[in-house]
């Protein structure tokens, strides 16, 4: 069974939770920029959390399905509809073969993630269905979707069947995921950071600027990273560094002093000093940054960052149990 992309919009890609375990081959993580949003959407439609979905940038997507499917979405400030009926984020809904799902974004450069029951069943490459746009492999032919693309859909899980029966009358679920999971866009872009390996190579005034001054997201940002404009963060130690690992969330500072917040398509290594890292639970906010957005940083302890991630994982486990109980 298939999904038909009538209109692909600006940048829509097939993504799952990324390609893990191949950094020694120079392979980027790729995957949904907000993996948690995709996991929530997958849970809502009864998919395994590793199922592939769609990542939209800006929007103007229109799609149809060959057979009736459950759909759900999370992410930025999008207007998603099934025919004319609005579908709020974090709800599961049935999309019949005669209906059309559309997603439009009133503001540029925000992102959203759509899950379809059964998942997008493109062949996995190196253990993942994510699109590696730079090296042009994975996802749908290693590229962004185009108008007229046809995507294979997988088989429904038994949980998806149960949810499908449950929604037969109402069509849209009354229940929903927690709003702060599905609408990270409503959170102010105030990102928690921990100190990076090269924090001490920066002077106190750079530390102060990083946590007290606002930064503006520059238009030349993409899935590799968000370039930030604001006070220049100049390292005291300007020696050339041996390249070492970088990862999504790394705040690296090139010689021009303007930090780059790395995202999932970033290279595996880099030679610029790493002043700080955005913590994992706040990457959902980083994934929604648009050109022109004002972003601020505040420092938290490493143990606190990891504790908040564990709390979220526990809540997510409960959420999945809740979906199972409601469906069966």
């Amino acid at each position, binding site marked *: 069974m298939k999904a038909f992309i009538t209109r692909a919009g600006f940048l829509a890609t097939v993504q799952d939770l990324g390609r893990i375990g191949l950094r020694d*081959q120079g392979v980027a993580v790729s995957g949904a920029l907000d993996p948690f949003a995709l996991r929530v959407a997958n849970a809502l439609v009864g998919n395994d959390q590793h199922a592939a979905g769609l990542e939209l940038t800006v929007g103007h997507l229109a799609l149809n399905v060959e057979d009736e499917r459950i759909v759900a979405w999370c992410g930025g400030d999008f207007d998603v509809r099934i025919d004319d009926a609005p579908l709020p984020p974090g709800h599961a809904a049935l999309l019949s073969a005669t209906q059309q799902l559309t997603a439009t974004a009133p503001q540029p450069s925000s992102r959203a993630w759509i899950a379809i029951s059964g998942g997008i069943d493109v062949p996995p490459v190196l253990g993942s269905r994510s699109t590696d746009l730079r090296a042009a492999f994975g996802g749908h032919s290693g590229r962004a979707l185009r108008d007229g693309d046809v995507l294979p859909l997988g088989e429904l899980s038994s949980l998806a069947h149960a949810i499908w029966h449950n929604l037969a009358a109402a069509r849209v679920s009354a229940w929903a995921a927690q709003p702060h999971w599905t609408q990270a866009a409503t959170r102010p872009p105030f990102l928690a950071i921990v100190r990076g390996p090269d924090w001490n190579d920066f002077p106190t005034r750079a530390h102060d600027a990083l946590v007290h001054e606002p930064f503006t997201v520059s238009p030349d940002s993409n899935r590799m990273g968000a370039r930030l404009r604001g006070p220049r963060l100049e390292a005291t130690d300007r020696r050339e560094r041996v390249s*070492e690992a970088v990862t999504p969330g790394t705040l690296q500072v090139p010689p021009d002093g303007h930090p780059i917040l790395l995202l999932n398509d970033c290279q*595996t290594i880099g030679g610029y000093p790493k002043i700080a890292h955005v913590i994992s639970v706040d990457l959902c906010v980083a994934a929604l940054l648009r050109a022109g957005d004002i972003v601020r940083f505040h420092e938290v302890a490493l143990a606190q960052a990891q504790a908040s991630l564990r709390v979220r994982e526990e809540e997510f486990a409960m959420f999945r149990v809740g979906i199972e109980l409601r469906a069966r």
Partner: protein
Amino acid sequence: MQIVPLGDAAIVVRVLDDFKHDPARAIDAVLHVRAQLCAAAIDGIADIAPAYTTVALFFDPARAGDTEALVAKIRSALAVVRRAVTIRPRTIEVPVCYDAEFASDLAEVATHARLSPAEVVRLHSRAKYLVSCLGFSPGFPYLSGLPREIATPRRSTPRTRVPAGAVAIGGRQTGIYPHESPGGWNIVGRTPLRLFDPGQAQPALLQAGDNVRFRSITREEFIAQRG
């Protein structure tokens, strides 16, 4: 050995300060640490990747526990003295066509080195190289061992399009672009070999620690080998 957190989901083990004065010893030490960490099979570690002088570990904090606890596990893994395994590095020969049509920056490299293009090719293809790291793009090898005479700074304006297979010089290193991509290194030739094949379980042709030799081939050989 310095062990530093890289955000809340990764840790970097800094094995040495520098690799340039002895790249072979550096990669040996780094790969030894990687072997120790892999052998320890620490629960929750999703990826272990070497780079020049470091080994990075990536983990899921919800499964692997706090950084502090992980650092302790890493330290005890590194304290285990492993029987010295002589790692016999592979030597891989990479055919390169240095003809002008594939070597858009050979003249500039020659001018910078105050040598003839033929002399640059001779030096480049005679040296013995070592893969110090993979990165920049999937399968891109950073090769140490470039003769000092032909070291050339990166181009001030990177090219927007470097073809797949381009062999290039960037500072004291040489490398091969596996994919068509933007790039700032000086292109001196092209290989018909495929450097990265996503259909293989180990997709990169060259691995960290491999020895590499370039063999100069004619345009006809290049076309025949590219298939």
